[in-house]
């Protein structure tokens, strides 16, 4: 996993987490939406942010990417504080963001969507590699991005960040509304990325999808992390988790 990272100088300094969020507060206008979120992710780990709708999971990722109106607290990427960094510079630290609504640009073709994002680090996948991973996208390269099926749009949203060389991926609800066969496909992709050393923060409603992939789970409620469950603890804490995630 780490050879590519080492070559690109992307390996975290020993002991320094790839991503550290500490006492993060965020606002949309006057609405205070995060109330002290804290968690961390080490290089090569896959962690999930779990919680009910409106708990603050998506807002946490948006705050990391500089997309909330205001935030306070600490967000560090490989030890570098990015809390007040201009949004367009954050991605260049090697972060790829796959938003909940997929964010396919309507005025662009599939291939334009795929190649639009700036390269933020060396070692990104080539178009050929991406087309090998997602063959549907090659067939639909000239189609308008928003005319693809839901599953294809999700693949496109994932694929375009893999081209940028980002090694820390923030994936928000990538299985939402997709057919089981596509969900299985995406699980394979996440597993493949994890085995290649990517660090992944995953927001998921579909716990059956997330459970086997993640090293650790953070449960968010009312804008703060209320429970941390490691993979090893999962069997013994399944009851607690079910209770916390029950609607």
């Amino acid at each position, binding site marked *: 996993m780490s050879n590519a990272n080492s070559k690109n100088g992307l390996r975290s300094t020993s002991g320094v987490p790839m991503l550290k969020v500490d006492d993060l507060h965020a606002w949309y206008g006057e609405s205070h939406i995060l109330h002290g979120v804290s968690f961390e992710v080490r290089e090569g780990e896959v962690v999930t942010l779990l919680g009910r709708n409106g708990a603050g999971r998506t807002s946490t990722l948006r705050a990391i990417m500089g997309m909330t109106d205001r935030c306070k607290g600490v967000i560090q990427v490989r030890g570098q504080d990015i809390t007040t960094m201009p949004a367009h510079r954050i991605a260049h630290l090697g972060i790829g*963001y796959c938003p909940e609504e997929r964010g396919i640009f309507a*005025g*662009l073709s599939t291939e334009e969507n795929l190649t*639009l*994002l700036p390269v933020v680090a060396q070692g990104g996948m080539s178009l050929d590699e991406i087309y090998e991973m997602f063959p549907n996208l090659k067939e639909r390269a000239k189609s308008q991005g928003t005319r693809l099926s839901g599953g294809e749009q999700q693949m496109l949203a994932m694929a375009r960040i893999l081209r940028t060389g980002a090694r820390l991926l923030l994936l928000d609800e990538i299985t939402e509304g997709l057919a089981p066969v596509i969900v299985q496909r995406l699980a394979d992709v996440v597993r493949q990325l994890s085995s290649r050393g990517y660090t992944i923060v995953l927001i998921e409603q579909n716990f059956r999808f997330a459970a086997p992939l993640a090293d650790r789970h953070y449960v968010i409620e009312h804008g703060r992390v209320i429970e941390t469950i490691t993979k090893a603890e999962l069997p013994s804490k399944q009851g607690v988790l079910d209770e916390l995630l029950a609607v």
Partner: protein
Amino acid sequence: MEALLTMSPQALIAQLLIGLINGSFYAILSLGLAIIFGLLNVINFAHGAMYMLGAFFAWLALTQVGTWIGSPDISISYWLALLLAPLAVALLGMALERTLLRRLYKLDHLYGLLFTFGLSLFLEGIFTQWWGAAGQSYPVPEALSGAVRFEALGVVLPKYRVWVVFASLLVCLLTWWAIERTRLGAFLRAGTDNPRLLRAFGVNVPLMITLTYGFGVFLAGFAGVLAAPVYQVSPLMGTNLIIIVFAVVVIGGMGSIGGAIVTGLALGIVEGLSKIVYPQASAITIFLIMAIVLMIRPSGLFGKTA
């Protein structure tokens, strides 16, 4: 209608070409407005003033620059002004965007409209104060003086007006190509769609917005220089035109690049024809079309439906 049927083909073609000349100005101005609205979501009422500035900068460059630097013989030619005056307008526009307009993006559209309207009045007021409300004449460049005969059509047209149509079409088509067919244009299209997300992907959207506003008003300044030898260069020359251009943008579809170009040219021709059919109504033809389009297709002929 009888006038149209009894008119000689030569006179009809001449009238169509005159319409095309007006349409060229409509197209290039509405193109700039559409680009600005697309990315900034600002209804740039100062566009007419920027058009005026382009014409005025060219006139000042030709007649006043020499005096200012103490060498009356020196002047900046039309051809050089065709590049430098729009560039000066673009630089001024970018400075205004960065210092003032930027503060309004989070507010309702209305604030941007009011600000640019105020800016327009301010600029027109300053130039009226300095140079008076009466128009200044700008000579047709020597290379484009005289007339050209189109044997096949049997019409004779002033060379300069043919040049205006050619230059406008060229700039419009190049702009369309750059937006629709290049990577730079893809950034603009993506930014128009979802600027916040594009920024999160690592694109410097604030800089892109500044450059886009600069390019939009560059087009207005370019149209102003083209217009200088055709119309009188006066502080209020953009005021009347901008109302028609807004109607063109609404008919074409707010933010639609292709729509702005096609509608601008087409409405220029329709307006020209209406001068033959029923001259009294020619001034309102475009607004009548706008009212009909708004009733049938509120998003404009080429705009995206909500």
